[in-house]
Structures are given as structure tokens and as C-alpha cells.
């Protein structure tokens, strides 16, 4: 009984209907929402793309990266610099994606030689070094004051307000990025990432070079970070060294885990967490912002280790358990327990011997 709605969602016509509905909502809703809602949604879109990039390298390929915000900041700086130099906006977009990608590739070539958490500790260097570097290169970055660039004004022919036009841009560019990434991680590259995440030795024995796929995942993540940086300039129109501070970097990581690792929908939820929770905690009590954020983060991890995206699954499991209450069926429970054991496989730890 409980599986019926799940099966309904797997039908092709149902999926197409949902896609059409989502696109229709994305076209209509910005026209009716107030400006503040549109701006908030656009910011969520920006950081959803940033979280998506982090998800590629961390959620799918299993390499903890604390440097994703650096690529967002780099993309934003390239955009701001290009706009102030009056370059063609298409060229600016391409550069704001390619330059972070190239930097990401160079960093990955060195960082991917490391295993496990060492990558986390190397990528932490990116925001830490990035902030003073941005202050130093004030010729290009405007130093501590930062750069502002206003280029995403609604054209007069469209008859839209600026906030609507910006939200459409975010939805279009972000939507294409999400679609491309979804196709990437659902195809053979996604399977290669999964095996690299699961066990590198096995990956190597199956002809999947862990090194090459780690570098690939990292580079794709920095390209997506660049897209997010461009969108950041579309919406926020201002960037400073603080954009890529260490604090933002760890908040981004927290957002990804809270939204749900290795999940496309989880990236959107992560973007929403990144934007909405600081607003919420500020509204409750500005003195307690950090305490509340820490508590929320730990609470979500305690209740939903799989992130917000696993909420329906958890509810469904609780639902079936309570319904089965009087008449528990031992075989299925034993099976699920075995699956749990297999997930937290203890053999991985023997490597330290």
C-alpha cells in the first residue's frame, strides 16, 4: 500500500507532468511574488548552485572540500572585474566559469594525490589564503572595499522589474547547471564517482583511476562554483574578500550535509538552509546566532544523518513501523539491520593497522 505513491512517481508521464508544472511555476511565480521574496529566492538559487558544486566533489565523489567558497568568490571577482572593464557579458560569463575551473584543476592535480581527510585540510587553505590575496591584489579586486558591478538590470523591452529579471536569470542559468550536473552524476561518470567514494582500491581494479576521477570531480565542482559566483554578482551586485571567508566556507559545507549529500534536491534544500537559517536565527536573537546555528546543525545531524532530503524516507519508515506495531515481521527487520551493518562496514577501519 505504502509503495503505491512511490511507484506513481516513477511513471514517465508523471515525471514529465511534474517537470512541466515546475517550469510553469518558475515562469509564473516570480511575476506575482513581492520583491523581497524574489530576491530571497534568487539568493537561494545562487547558493543552491554553490552547494551543488560541493555535492559533486564531496557528496558524489567523497572528497571533503573546504575550499568551494573560494571558487564562488573567484567567479564573482572575475565577473565584477570584467563588467567594470566593459567586456562583453557573454565573454565575462565564460571567463567567470573557466578561470575558477582552471585554478581548480591545478589545485586538484596536487590535492588529489592525498587520501581522505588530508584533502579537507589542504582545501581549507583556499579561503584562508584567498582573503589576504584578494586584499593584496587591490588593482583587480578593489582591496578590502571590494568591487561592485551592476549589470543585470531588466531590459526595457521585457517590462519586468529588476528583481524579477534577476530571478529569471538565476532560474535559467542555475536550472541548466542543475540539469547538466544531474545528467553527469546519473551516468557513467556518476557510477565512477560512487566507486571512487566507496573504495579506491576496488575502483582501481575495475579500471577506474581514482586520481583521474578525483581531479575531474574537483574541476567540475570549481566550474560550478564559477557559475555560482557569476550568479552571485547578478543578484548581490557586490563582492569583497569577505565573500570567500573561512566562515562562509564551513557554512556551505554544513548546508550541503543538512540538505543531503549526493542528492540533487538536497542541493536546493542546502541553498535554502544557507540563506534562510541566518535570517531566522537573527530574527530570534542576534546575540545567539552562532549558538542557534550550531544547535540546529547538530540537531539535524542527530535526527536525520542523511540530511533533510531523507525526511520522507524516515517518516515512511516510522509509519510502516507503527502500522506493523502489533504484528512485526522479523525477516524484513533482520534484512534492514543487515543493510545497516553493511553501510557502516567495519573493515574500512582495518586499514590503519
Amino acid at each position, binding site marked *: 500500500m505504502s509503495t503505491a505513491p512511490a511507484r506513481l512517481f516513477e511513471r514517465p508521464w508523471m515525471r514529465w507532468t511534474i517537470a512541466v508544472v515546475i517550469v510553469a511555476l518558475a515562469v509564473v511565480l516570480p511575476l506575482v511574488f513581492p520583491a523581497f521574496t524574489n530576491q530571497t529566492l534568487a539568493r537561494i538559487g545562487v547558493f543552491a548552485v554553490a552547494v551543488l558544486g560541493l555535492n559533486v566533489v564531496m557528496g558524489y565523489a567523497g572528497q571533503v572540500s573546504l575550499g568551494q567558497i573560494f571558487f564562488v568568490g573567484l567567479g564573482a571577482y572575475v565577473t565584477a572585474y570584467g563588467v567594470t572593464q566593459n567586456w562583453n557579458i557573454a565573454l565575462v560569463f565564460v571567463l567567470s566559469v573557466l578561470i575558477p575551473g582552471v585554478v581548480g584543476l591545478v589545485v586538484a592535480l596536487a590535492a588529489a594525490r592525498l587520501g581522505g581527510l588530508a584533502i579537507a585540510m589542504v582545501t581549507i587553505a583556499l579561503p584562508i589564503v584567498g582573503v*589576504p590575496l584578494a586584499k*593584496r591584489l587591490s588593482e583587480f579586486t578593489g582591496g578590502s572595499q571590494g568591487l561592485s558591478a551592476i549589470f543585470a538590470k531588466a531590459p526595457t523591452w521585457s517590462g519586468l522589474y529588476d528583481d524579477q529579471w534577476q530571478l529569471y536569470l538565476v532560474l535559467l542559468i542555475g536550472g541548466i547547471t542543475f540539469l547538466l550536473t544531474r545528467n553527469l552524476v546519473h551516468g557513467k561518470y556518476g557510477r565512477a564517482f560512487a566507486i571512487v567514494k566507496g573504495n579506491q582500491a576496488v575502483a582501481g581494479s575495475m579500471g577506474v583511476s581514482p586520481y583521474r576521477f578525483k581531479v575531474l570531480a574537483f574541476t567540475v565542482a570549481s566550474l560550478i562554483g564559477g557559475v555560482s559566483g557569476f550568479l552571485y554578482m547578478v543578484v548581490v551586485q557586490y563582492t569583497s574578500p569577505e565573500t570567500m571567508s573561512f566562515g562562509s566556507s564551513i557554512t556551505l559545507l554544513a548546508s550541503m550535509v543538512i540538505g543531503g549529500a549526493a542528492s540533487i534536491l538536497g542541493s536546493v534544500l542546502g541553498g535554502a538552509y544557507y540563506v534562510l537559517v541566518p535570517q531566522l536565527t537573527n530574527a530570534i536573537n542576534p546575540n545567539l546566532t552562532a549558538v542557534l546555528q*550550531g544547535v540546529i546543525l547538530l540537531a539535524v545531524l*542527530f535526527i536525520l544523518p542523511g540530511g533533510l532530503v531523507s525526511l520522507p524516507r524516515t517518516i515512511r519508515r516510522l509509519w510502516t513501523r507503527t502500522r506493523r506495531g502489533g504484528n512485526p515481521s522479523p525477516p524484513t527487520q533482520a534484512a534492514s539491520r543487515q543493510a545497516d551493518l553493511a553501510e557502516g562496514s567495519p573493515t574500512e577501519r582495518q586499514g*590503519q*593497522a
Partner: protein
Amino acid sequence: MGTFIQLVVDGLSTGSVYAALALAIVLVNQATGLVNFAQGGMAVLSAYIALELVQLHVPLAIAIIVSMAASFLLGAIIERYLMRRFERGDPDTAVVVTIGLLTLVTGVCAWIWSYNNQQFPSLFPSSTVSILGAVVSVSSLGTILVIVVIMVLLQALFLGTKLGLALRAVAINPQSAAFSGMPVGRLLMVGWGLAAALGAVAGALVAPQLSLTPNMMDSPLVYALAAVILGGMTSPLGVVVAAWLIGVLENLAAVYLPFIGYDLKVAVPFILIFVVLLVRPQGLFGRKAVVRV
């Protein structure tokens, strides 16, 4: 020449603070396979506890020892009631838990003691001594001495006592240790407690120099992580040597390389890491991890 010696001694002194924090990180990593990003935040909390005691007219040395004991308890409690739940699961989630802990601890410190700078008294007199014509502060020498003593004590604990043997056994293989009848859970608590106490020492040593704020340990934490990678996760001695190397090199680079200067000296350890890792991915002193499939 005088400046050079002064820079080297000061570098060794800041390096010693990084070393204390780095040793704490290695201790936790060896016991539980995690990197605790909250180690610095917990050290700040310990420093605030010591400061509260000093303001109650407790002598500084006793205040630091009491705060070490309190940190030991706190570390053990955090392991038992927070980290235990995540140790067997996805390591990425566990890392994010420590990041949540960092946010929480920093937030609590800021809530109770505010973000304003507080003066923390130094363990050592502010006088200077002259070595080979260089003027060197006593507090630098004292900091170095404290770390050397701690290292000797840790080595003695791990190599010379039954508790140390048990801790090493749990670190190497928790399953086999449990089969041999060792209280694995309690030993993990001891490991986290020891790390927190070490962090308390680092906090007390660095607070007089940086003046105490809730974010004080953020940049020492980054240097400590750099030292951990450079020295290799598996080698406490290597980590201390790497921390000293980082402290000295960044001091020298800040003064002698005009492009680096004081604002970019944080890049020095990471440039060093890049160069070293291209040659020795397991770190300067680390062993290669062998993975059984």
C-alpha cells in the same frame, strides 16, 4: 644576525603553540579516525575558564591546571554523548558534526564573554635575555620548553604505561581491542579528554599573545592542520617538527621576502605542503596507510 636569531626563536615559540594543537588533532585522529575541527574552539573555551578562575584570584598556574582538568572532562563528555553516535557512520557527516561543534562552542563563548578582546595574563615574565647578541623574550623560551616537556610526557605515556598501550591498541584496531576485553568506549573518552587538555595548554599559551576572543584559535587551527599534513598523521614527533618548521619559515618569509609580508605569511605553510606532497604524499615523517580490501 641578531634579528635572524630573534625571528627563529619567536618562530619556534609560535610553532610550539601550533604543535600543541596539532598534537591534540593527531591524538583524536589516531583514536577515532576523525579530524576534530572544534579542537581550537574547545581550547578557547578552556582559556576562558582559566581566565574566570584568575579573576577569582586563583594563581595562574593552578587556574590553567584546573581548566585542563575541566577540559579533559568536557572532551570525554563530548566523545561519549555527541561523537559516539557518528564514529561508525559516514566520516563526512562526522567531520560536519565537529564543524557544528565549533560553531556551537564559539557561539557559547561569544554569548557568555562577548566578542570583545580580553587580556589574558602570561605564565612567563615579560623580561628578555640576550643570546649571541640577539634579544629573546623569556616567554618565547618558556613556550618552547613547555611543549618539549609535554612531548616527553606524551611519549612516556604512550610507550611506558599500560594505559598508553591500551590507547594505542584501540587506535590500531578497535574490534580486536574489544575482543581482548579492553573498555574501548572508555578509552576513546580518555583519548578525547587528553586531546582537550592539550588544547587547553595551547589556549593558555597563545591567549596572552593574541588576546582572548572567541575566534582566537581559528588561525592557529589552520596552521595546526597544516602541521598535521606536513608531519604526517601517524607521527607525533613529525607533527611537532613540522609545526616548528612552519613557525620559523613563516616568520622568516614575512621579513625577508617582500612579496609575502605579514598579510600573506599564512600562505607559507600551504606552499610548503604543496611542494612536500608532490614528493612525499604521506607527509615528511608519516607512514603510508595500507588498506585491506
